[in-house]
């Protein structure tokens, strides 16, 4: 193909196209600034700044309106023809691309206005979309509460718990939360045991959570309780509101939902649970029994004060804490 200069006709046509565009005007920008000044003035100094903004807006609005309606009012629009120097062809062989499939001249490879606007729109849209997504995704993925405080549950003086007697204790972990935080635990005073580290004699309690290790239903004590035993249910008022202690003689624990069964130490004996019942950590504070967080237990060897408890970080019901299945739950959400 032979390189060819564009004919004067086509050149004029392309220039003509460009000169048809009305000249950009600054009046809308001035009007917008005026509106901004009004709004800022409303916050800063409504009596002084806002009228100034209003004046700016009115002046520029008038100029803008005059400009925009010039054609309607029959005023000729004066347009400065835009002039551009034709770039020298870098290579003599480069055609100008005005016919057929000739390659584009170098000047057209620059970013055009529409390309730029397209990119800017998509880019800004992406940024805005990302900004909206971050809180939503964070909300969905992150734990609802970070740094929850541990609930301490005061269950009353140690004298309430005779040696070797089981109780079904019900209490609210957070009185502000109300009845929905009511929990149940099976408690037995094991007397005292030598602390393995210090050798001192310390109180020992077995405190088993009644949350089934299958799917979290309320486990019940299998055995007579309360009036049948000729013993009274004790109600106390502590810092945690009303605490109820029901004397019980359990032969084990059973779940009403899917039939999981446990022995008195919380070991699974039958049914679908995947581990033993969770237990409460506790402390003795001024002679009172105080429950702390729960922890998970795979199984317990022995009973009472001599029991060897295989203790794990708190896991949800149905989640294995030992054996190969524990690999399915490598990361637990934070737990107080």
């Amino acid at each position: 193909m032979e390189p060819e200069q564009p004919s004067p006709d086509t050149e004029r046509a392309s220039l003509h196209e460009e000169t048809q565009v009305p000249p950009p005007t600054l009046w809308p920008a001035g009007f917008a600034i005026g509106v901004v000044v009004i709004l800022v003035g409303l916050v800063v100094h409504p009596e002084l700044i806002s009228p100034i903004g209003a004046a700016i807006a009115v002046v520029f609005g008038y100029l803008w309106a005059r400009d925009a309606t010039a054609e309607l009012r029959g005023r000729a629009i004066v347009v400065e023809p835009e002039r551009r120097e034709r770039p020298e062809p870098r290579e003599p062989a480069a055609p100008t691309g005005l016919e057929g499939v000739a390659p584009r001249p170098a000047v057209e490879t620059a970013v055009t206005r529409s390309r730029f606007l397209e990119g800017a729109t998509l880019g800004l849209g992406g940024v805005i979309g990302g900004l909206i997504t971050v809180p939503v995704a964070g909300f969905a993925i992150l734990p609802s509460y970070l740094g929850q405080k541990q609930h301490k549950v005061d269950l009353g003086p140690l004298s309430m718990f005779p040696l070797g007697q089981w109780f079904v204790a019900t209490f609210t972990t957070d009185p502000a939360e109300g009845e929905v935080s009511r929990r149940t635990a099976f408690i037995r005073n094991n007397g005292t045991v030598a602390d393995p580290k210090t050798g001192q004699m310390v109180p020992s309690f077995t405190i088993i959570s009644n949350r089934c290790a299958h799917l979290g239903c309320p486990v019940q004590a299998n055995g007579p309780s309360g009036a049948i035993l000729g013993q009274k249910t004790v109600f106390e008022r502590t810092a945690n509101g009303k605490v109820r202690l029901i004397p019980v003689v359990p032969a084990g624990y059973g779940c009403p939902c899917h039939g999981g069964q446990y022995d008195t130490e919380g070991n699974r004996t039958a049914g679908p649970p995947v581990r033993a019942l969770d237990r409460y950590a506790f402390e003795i504070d001024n002679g009172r029994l105080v429950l702390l967080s729960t922890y998970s237990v795979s199984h317990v060897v022995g009973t009472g004060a001599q029991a060897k408890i295989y203790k794990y970080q708190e896991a949800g019901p149905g989640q294995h804490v030992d054996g190969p299945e524990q690999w399915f739950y490598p990361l637990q959400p934070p737990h107080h």
Partner: protein
Amino acid sequence: MTLRRPPTRAELRRQRMEELVTYPLDWLEERSGLVGGIRYFLFRNVPSDVNWMQTLGSAALTAFLVQAITGVILAMYYTPSAATDPATGKPVAYESIQNITDHLTLGWLVRGMHRWGASVFIILMFLHMGRVFLFGAYKYPRELNWIVGVLILVLGMMEGFTGYLLPWDQTAYWATVVGINLNGTAPFLGPWLAQFLRSGQEITGETLTRFYSLHMLVIPAGIMALIGLHLYLVIRLGVSSPPWSKEAAGMEPAEEEPVPARRPGLMRPVPRGAGAAAIQAEPGGRD
């Protein structure tokens, strides 16, 4: 040859009445094309031997609309609060349900429709799914609509799960405990999913508000969007014939419809039947 005579007054009145009726419709049609659009949506050609079983989808849609309308009414009276009412000692959410059932005019009816309608919606979706499966209506080119339908079914069951907690009684509470813990046993992300559903480590009043929000805002919006897509695909692809049809499924006589050179594009409306015929007639199709 009609006799050219001046119209009688009755005729003139009739003409004016007709103009009165058609004018707003014409006005709307000229500016929006909505009248034609609705006609295109509702008055479609279907195979001559369609079966009553093929109304199950519409029935499921109707059940969903009943759920939406009764749900809006219930939302006006229900309070998703686990707080205890000091006057009665009962949770506020439970009391508001009692109030709807016992005191609100026709409240028992609206709540009953919503409560039983939920089961009806799920059952109809399953029946519709069975019909589509047994008719083979999920096959090419309708696979995507099957997938969309399955998503609607999943979201519908999520509606059931989140709605079940709202009465905030013992059944609701323990069913949700089991349901959330069941999710919690899923490998790897299960514990995180469970804590998301619970809004923390324990079921609290915030679980209730979260389920309420999911139940009436998030999931219905998803279902509505998917129903829109589902219907769009039904209209675009047409209704399939029953498997015992004498005609090949969804096929129109070839000589009546000239086969387009290429498959109709997304933006070009397909005359009913022509799309299916075009698809059938393509090389490799079941011609």
